[in-house]
C-alpha cells in the first residue's frame, strides 16, 4: 500500500502536472477564474484520466502484441475522444445531477494534453496496471490542487488597476504561476 501512497503524493506535489511538468497549461490558465469552475474541471479531468488509463493501458499491450506499438498516438487520441463522448452520453442519461455539475467540462478534456500525457507517460515509464491507475489518479488530484490554488491567487488579482499596464491580463497570471511553481520546486527531492 505504501508504494501506491508514494506514487500519489509524488504526483500531487513533486511532479505536479501543471506546475512541474507543463502539462494541462491551457485549462490551468483558462478555467481557473473562479473556485467552482476550477473544482469542476479538476474533478472531471481526474475522472477522465483514470478511465482513459484504464482503457489505454490494455490497448497498448494489444498493440505491442501485434507489433504496431508506433500507432500509439493515433489510437490513444481516438480512444480518449470516443471515451469522453461515451462518458458524456452515459452521464446525461443516468446521472443527471453529476452531468449538470461536470458535463460542461467534459468536451474540453479531449484536447487537454494532460490526459494524453498521463496515458503515454504511464506506458513510457513501464508501470504495471495498478501503478498506472494510481499514477493517473495522483496526476488528476495534483491538477485539481493546482487549479484550486490558482483560482485562489486569481481572486486576489481582480483589481487590475495596481498592475502595470503591459502586465494586465495574461502576463500577470503567468507571473503568478511562475512564483507558484517556484514554491512547488521545494517539494523536489522528497522521494529521491
Amino acid at each position: 500500500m505504501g508504494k501506491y501512497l508514494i506514487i500519489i503524493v509524488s504526483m500531487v506535489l513533486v511532479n505536479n502536472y501543471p506546475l512541474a511538468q507543463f502539462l494541462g497549461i491551457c485549462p490551468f490558465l483558462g478555467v481557473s477564474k473562479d473556485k467552482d469552475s476550477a473544482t469542476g474541471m479538476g474533478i472531471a479531468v481526474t475522472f477522465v484520466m483514470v478511465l482513459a488509463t484504464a482503457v489505454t493501458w490494455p490497448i497498448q499491450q494489444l498493440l505491442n502484441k501485434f507489433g504496431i506499438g508506433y500507432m500509439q498516438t493515433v489510437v490513444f487520441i481516438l480512444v480518449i475522444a470516443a471515451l469522453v463522448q461515451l462518458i458524456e452520453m452515459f452521464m446525461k442519461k443516468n446521472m443527471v445531477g453529476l452531468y449538470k455539475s461536470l458535463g460542461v467540462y467534459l468536451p474540453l478534456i479531449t484536447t487537454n494534453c494532460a490526459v494524453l500525457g498521463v496515458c503515454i507517460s504511464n506506458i513510457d515509464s513501464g508501470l504495471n496496471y495498478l501503478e498506472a491507475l494510481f499514477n493517473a489518479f495522483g496526476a488528476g488530484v495534483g491538477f485539481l490542487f493546482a487549479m484550486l490554488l490558482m483560482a485562489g491567487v486569481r481572486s486576489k488579482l481582480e483589481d487590475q488597476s495596481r498592475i502595470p499596464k503591459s502586465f494586465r491580463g495574461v502576463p500577470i497570471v503567468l507571473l503568478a504561476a511562475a512564483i507558484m511553481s517556484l514554491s512547488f520546486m521545494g517539494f523536489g527531492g522528497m522521494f529521491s
Partner: protein
Amino acid sequence: MENKNKVSILTNGLIKENPVLVLVLGTCPTLATTTSLVNGFGMGISATAVLICSNIVISLLRKIIPDNVRIPCYITVIAGFVTIVQLIVKAFAPALDESLGLYLPLIVVNCIILGRAEMFANKNSVVDSALDGIGMGLGFTLTLCVMGSIRELIGAGTIAGFPVLSRIMPGMSVMTLVPGGFAVYSFIMAFVHYMTEDKSKIRNSFGCSDCAMQDNCVDGSGCANKEVA
C-alpha cells in the same frame, strides 16, 4: 491585390496573429521545450511540419468531410502526421527525440494545429492553407527560438551550446526550469503588449469574446478556452 492577399496570409502568423503571443494557443509545448535554443527550434520545426501537412490535407478534404464529424476527422489526420514526424525525428535526430520526449506525441493536442484546421483550412483553398500553415508555423518557431535563447542565455550562459555569458557569470539554472519558463513567457507577452500599445487589444481574460475561434464557435464544445463562468 491577389498577391498582396497571399503575402498577408503568410505574414499574419508571424506578428499580427502570432499563435503563441497573441492568440495564446499551444502554451504547453511553448513552455516545456524552450529550455534551450536547439530544443525550441526542434519543437517549432516539428510542429510546423505537422501544421503545413495537416492544413493541406484538411483543405483538400474540406468538401468530403461531413460537418458533424469534422473534429474527429481532423484529429485523425493530425495524429497520422504526428506519428510520421515522431518516427522521422526518432530515426534522424535521436538526441532531439530524447530531449523533447513526451512533448513530441503531444503535438497532436497542440491547439494551434486543430485551431488552424478549424479556423482556416476548412474554408480556404489548398495554396492559401499551405501558406497559412507556413506563416503560423514560422511564427510559432520564431517565438520558441526567442524564448529558448533567452532561457538558455540566462540559465546556462550559452546560446545553441556556444558559451556567451558563462565566462562572466555562472548560469541561473532556475531559468531553464519550470518557473523560468512561466516568467520568460510572461515578460515576452508583456513586452508585446507594451510594443503594440493598443489598449483595446490587451486581453483581460481568456473568455469567448476575445477567442480567436469565435467565428466558428457554436456552443464552445471541444474548446479548451471556453468561458465557463
